[in-house]
């Protein structure tokens, strides 16, 4: 029975049922069971295309199952489960529905075999996810949500335009490997790039994720961008341009993350940097590189969620995620601190943690394919990851200077969610074979070689040493309450300012014209007044006698003239 239903519909059905159930734990149980059921279905589906539907003369493939879509489907189910477990205390119906529909749409998009189905789910993720931002219910989150929605919907509209052009060109809407060339393929590429936070298109990510609710950010972090990574891996694997885009993505966010005060925004920059590694893998495009991208996306969703969870738990207890206000929380939130450290070690790719066994697939393949500069950038970016996610997040929250805050430890369900996620991060790092078995292609790779382990440990420990030296010498920049400008300044400040200037300019021109017309009318009236006013010759009152004389003179002249 369940095999004839698209996986996304399980989530939609659950969202419909949820409203009929009483508030409280019953709804929580449904939120946890739905992803488990979906994962079970994905696990048992054979490879192939199912559920073809006719729609306005086109065949839509609702379920295309292969090893690439399966691994993304599974990790999305796992992320939905962990996110919902973390959000067990939330009683906000809107957030619960949004979380279900968002996960469902992302999974639906992953299994979409054609571009039209992809478009529907693509927009679905945008519409569902914005409620996780609006659910904060503040003025700021409302405006941020609007900006987010505008960009996400635009990405979908561009996807649809690209699909239409591609269909006119090839006569097919199948979502398969494309080569950049025609306008259609470029538009689809751009649409994926917007959701994947390519450089200059990235800022919706850092703008919106810190504005969502505590649990909303954890859920947001998993889906949208990794869906875009999947779409790029499916549609543009081996596109060399992606190597350079990806390298730029690993590079620029680390500088911004370093000086950002809001730790959830630091994590958003860090997310952007991690996407860069995946995009490089897609650009390299070999079997091993695609394996690297898929496995890194899998591991990344877990450790990124774990980091957002630990900062979220701190926020739930203290009301802030700003580094300048935090510090020394390990005293009363030691378990959260340890979970955070595990997430930090995983993202920094310490040996025995998940990032190590997945990122190295991408790095090694980049080197194998002879991209020395890209490789050097990726190694540098790895040290950068350590800097903001590995050190800054745990150090300035749980250690560092004592903020004097003594919050309670995180609620028990959050601890369970974090503990389970932390366990998975270590499990993948220690025993990567089960993850490798899920990858799209066969893996012939040993992450734990002497040179690899020592090299990575050297990189990380010496970078750590540099951090300590910079802290002790006072060179390391302090955490201060401030915001930093990024590309979003263009549409949040520059364009509104320019608009205001142009608006004021146009208004001034009209004002001038109006003044000019008014002045001319006034002048005209004055002139007329001069001529016809009561004081002027034209309208002066003259006596009747003078008139009679003049008439008599005229008549006299007429009489004289008549004699000639």
């Amino acid at each position: 029975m369940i095999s004839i239903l698209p996986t996304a519909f399980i989530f939609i059905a659950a969202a419909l049922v949820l409203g009929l159930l009483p508030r409280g734990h019953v709804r929580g149980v449904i939120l946890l069971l739905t992803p488990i059921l979906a994962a079970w279905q994905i696990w048992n589906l054979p490879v192939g295309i199912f559920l073809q539907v006719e729609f306005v003369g086109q065949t839509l493939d609702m379920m295309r199952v292969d090893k690439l879509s399966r691994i993304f489907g599974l990790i999305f189910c796992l992320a939905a489960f962990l996110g919902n477990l973390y959000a067990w205390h939330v009683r906000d119906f809107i957030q619960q529905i949004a979380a279900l529909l968002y996960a469902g749409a992302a999974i639906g998009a992953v299994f979409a075999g054609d571009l039209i189905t992809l478009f529907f789910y693509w927009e679905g993720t945008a519409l569902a996810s914005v409620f996780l931002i609006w659910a904060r219910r503040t003025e700021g989150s409302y405006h941020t949500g609007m900006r987010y929605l505008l960009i996400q919907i635009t990405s979908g509209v561009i996807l649809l335009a690209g699909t239409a052009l591609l269909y006119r060109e090839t006569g097919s809407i199948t979502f398969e490997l494309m080569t950049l060339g025609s306008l259609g393929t470029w538009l689809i590429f751009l649409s994926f790039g917007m959701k994947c936070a390519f450089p200059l298109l990235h800022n919706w990510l850092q703008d919106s994720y810190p504005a969502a609710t505590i649990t909303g950010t954890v859920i947001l972090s998993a889906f949208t961008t990794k869906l875009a990574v999947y779409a790029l891996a499916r549609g543009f694997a081996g596109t060399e341009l992606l190597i350079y885009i990806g390298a730029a993505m690993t590079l620029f966010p680390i500088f911004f993350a370093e000086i950002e005060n809001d730790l959830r925004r630091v994590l958003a920059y860090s997310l952007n940097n991690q996407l860069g590694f995946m995009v490089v893998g897609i650009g390299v495009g070999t079997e091993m590189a695609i394996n690297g991208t898929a496995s890194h996306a899998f591991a990344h969703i877990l450790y990124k969620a774990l980091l957002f969870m630990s900062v979220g738990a701190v926020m739930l207890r203290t009301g802030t995620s700003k580094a300048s206000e935090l510090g020394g929380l390990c005293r009363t939130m030691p378990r959260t601190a340890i979970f955070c450290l595990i997430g930090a070690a995983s993202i920094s790719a310490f040996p025995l943690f998940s990032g190590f066994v997945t990122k190295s697939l991408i790095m090694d393949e980049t080197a194998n394919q002879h991209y020395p500069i890209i490789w050097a950038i990726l190694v540098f970016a790895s040290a950068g990851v350590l800097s903001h996610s590995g050190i800054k997040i745990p150090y300035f929250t749980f250690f560092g200077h004592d903020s004097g805050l003594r919050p309670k430890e995180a609620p028990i369900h959050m601890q369970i969610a974090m503990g389970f996620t932390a366990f998975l991060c270590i499990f993948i790092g220690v025993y990567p074979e089960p993850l490798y078995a899920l990858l799209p292609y066969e893996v012939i790779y040993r992450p734990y070689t002497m040179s690899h382990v020592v090299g990575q440990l050297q990189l990380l420990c010496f970078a750590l040493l540099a951090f300590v030296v910079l802290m002790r010498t006072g060179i390391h920049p302090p955490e201060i309450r401030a915001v930093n400008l990024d590309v979003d300044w263009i549409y949040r400040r520059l364009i509104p300012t320019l608009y205001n200037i142009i608006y004021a300019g146009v208004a001034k021109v009209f004002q001038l014209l109006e003044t000019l017309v008014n002045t001319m009318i006034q002048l005209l009236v004055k002139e007329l007044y001069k001529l016809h006013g009561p004081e002027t010759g034209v309208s002066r009152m003259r006596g009747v006698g003078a008139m009679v004389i003049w008439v008599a003179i005229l008549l006299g002249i007429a009489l004289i003239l008549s004699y000639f």
Partner: protein
Amino acid sequence: MDLNRSNETSKFSPLGKTLSWFTKTKNANKLFLGLALLCFALFLADFTYHKHGHFHIEEIPGFYGAYGFFMFTALILVAKALRLLIKRPENYYGDKAVDGEEYPTDQLEQGSK
């Protein structure tokens, strides 16, 4: 003051006490020394096995260590310079952003130990 401090420490859970060891000023030197020794050991480890990297530069002993140390320092310095250019007050974007506003307290579960 000191008495208060030690009283407070005794209230922390065993795990909290263990972790708070790392925050004490007097232990900072020990940690620093430990890290420096670890780095030195890792550098020495490079001589114990045959390195087989993709590029020749990887075969220089301590290459990764030096690269990590200097690039990390460069990163911090560049970021510091970047801050001079792009830093703005927290309420720069006014009420159209969440930076200047408090997180709604009804969505928090605060409480201190």
